[in-house]
């Protein structure tokens, strides 16, 4: 009986067995072909970028699709490092990552804890207010923020890169959701042991939500590392450019250092720089894939 039912189920989903031979095989071939072509579409530009970065600019232009391993050269990388102070970009991005990341990772779980586990007057109204600020379109804030930075004399400073958006509504919202899942009994036990509000947060909540914290850290890292719009507005000297801003400005810099190296001559260097900038993210992704997917899905709640 159960077997017959099982069989009917399988048949309904996959067609009758005799169809399996003809119709479905063909269907399978089409399915896998489609999925492989799609994978190619996503991966090929990256592969091409990495491979071409080991060719010279004119070589990329004249024979874009062929690659001889024996012709591989680090020439593009050498010239890039001569012409463009990429280490400054890395340093600035690193500084912003550390400080902005620390602010986000410290204050957002704390506020999330307050909203999730305390009863206090005005809590719900304040939380709705926090959510409402998420509706503000980031691009719209550019000019107002730039004006503020101008008034404060903060254009071309780390403060300008670090502070706006450091304690953001989305992270608080998400941390609140996560901390709400922490069992109240744990917190009560902590209270009995005489923990202060801060003690409860530090000793109980944070250790319990560690996976969510890891996801938040990854999301924050991606946001800051890939951030481009605000840094390109807030900074106008090479000294303060983040990696992404520097990457967008490559042709100018290469041309300044090496006159005539516009267009195809600079291509090798441009692709080398793009490869270098992509590398850290991809490595991290491959190591921490599970957390990444968790984090990105969490991030999808944004907006």
């Amino acid at each position, binding site marked *: 009986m159960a077997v017959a039912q099982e069989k009917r189920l399988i048949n309904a989903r996959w067609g009758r067995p005799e169809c399996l031979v003809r119709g479905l095989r063909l269907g399978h071939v089409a399915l896998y072909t489609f999925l492989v072509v799609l994978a190619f579409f996503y991966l090929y530009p990256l592969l091409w970028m990495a491979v071409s970065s080991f060719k010279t600019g004119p070589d990329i232009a004249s024979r874009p699709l062929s690659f001889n391993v024996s012709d591989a050269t680090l020439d593009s990388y050498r010239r890039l490092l001569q012409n463009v102070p990429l280490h400054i970009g890395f340093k600035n991005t690193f500084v912003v990552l550390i400080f902005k990341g620390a602010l986000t990772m410290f204050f957002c779980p704390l506020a999330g804890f307050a909203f999730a586990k305390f009863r206090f*007057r005005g809590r719900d109204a304040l939380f709705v207010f926090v959510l409402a600020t998420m509706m503000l379109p980031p691009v719209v804030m550019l000019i107002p923020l730039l004006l*503020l930075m101008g008034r404060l004399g903060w254009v071309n400073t780390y403060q300008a890169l670090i502070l706006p958006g450091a304690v953001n509504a989305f992270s608080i919202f998400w941390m609140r959701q996560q901390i709400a899942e922490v069992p109240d009994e744990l917190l009560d036990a902590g209270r009995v042991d005489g923990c202060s509000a801060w003690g409860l947060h530090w000793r109980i909540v944070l250790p319990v939500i560690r996976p969510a914290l890891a996801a938040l850290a990854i999301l924050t890292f991606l946001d800051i590392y890939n951030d481009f719009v605000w840094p390109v507005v807030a900074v106008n000297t090479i000294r303060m450019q983040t990696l992404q801003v520097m990457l967008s400005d490559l042709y100018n810099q290469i041309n300044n250092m090496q006159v005539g190296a516009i267009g195809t001559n600079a291509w090798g260097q441009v692709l080398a720089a793009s490869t270098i900038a992509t590398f850290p993210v991809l490595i991290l992704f491959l190591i921490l894939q599970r957390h990444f997917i968790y984090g990105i899905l969490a991030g999808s709640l944004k907006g």
Partner: protein
Amino acid sequence: MSSYSPRQRVFALRHWVGGSFAPYVFIAPFFVFFLAFGLFPLLYALRLSFTDWRGVGVPRFVGFANYTFLLTDRLFWESVQNSLYLWFFIVPVQTLFAVLVASLLSRPLLRFRWFFRTSYLVSYLVPLVAIAQVWKVLFDQDFGAVNYVLQTLGLPAVGWLTTSTWAKPTLALLVFWKSSGFAILIMLAAIQGIPRELYEAAALDGANERKQFFLITLPLMRRAIAFYVVIATLAVVQMFAEPYVLTQGGPYRSTTTAGYALFRYMKHLELGLGAANSFLLTILVVALSLLMLRLLRVREEA
């Protein structure tokens, strides 16, 4: 009556707010940051949007002149039009595509699922500027790899980034490459949330795979689809970085999106106008979100 000591008053206040001041201290940083980097600049910019100011000197009050100028300005409407055009290219296509791919990826017995899912998602992590630079090289009119392939096949070269006809589709393709993996991930999560028993029940009732897709998968994904359409729409209207790196808004302003138009005012230091444009864009974005949410609700009732 007023003979309470300060200590007693603090005690009473603490009792009134709920027993502890700690939660207020915990949420205070957000409000401090929001006042400093959200509300204050917004109000300042709002005031500025009613003035003529080019970065130096004293702002001159001009009433609604900036707004009326923009609303009758050909360039402003052109940028809105460009955004709508791009929306059409990007959002419907990408959403349908993501639903299709996600449903293929969640078929039972699919092999190499991990590989496919990972390879589709990688593009989402790549820094936008890096891939935009690659796009610029790949789609170069004279020496790009794409035209190289076309010419090898005996087809004419196309000015992908240099003609106003092709610049928008090329830009849309970049956005598609960059963000469709993310769309697929959202749709996958939505499909995984559908209880398996529904499919089993449908199979017992004799529904084939296509029927199951249209009668179970698609209806139950409606929320995820609507959600994605909303965030993708907001992203397209605000799009700034992509045209900035790829085309600088050109050729002939064909890729000057609503978001990029703001940057143009910033560059020319027309800050009063730029501020006014910011607020018009805010109205557009909020109106679009409300419209989308409205559509979502209507569909849910139906």
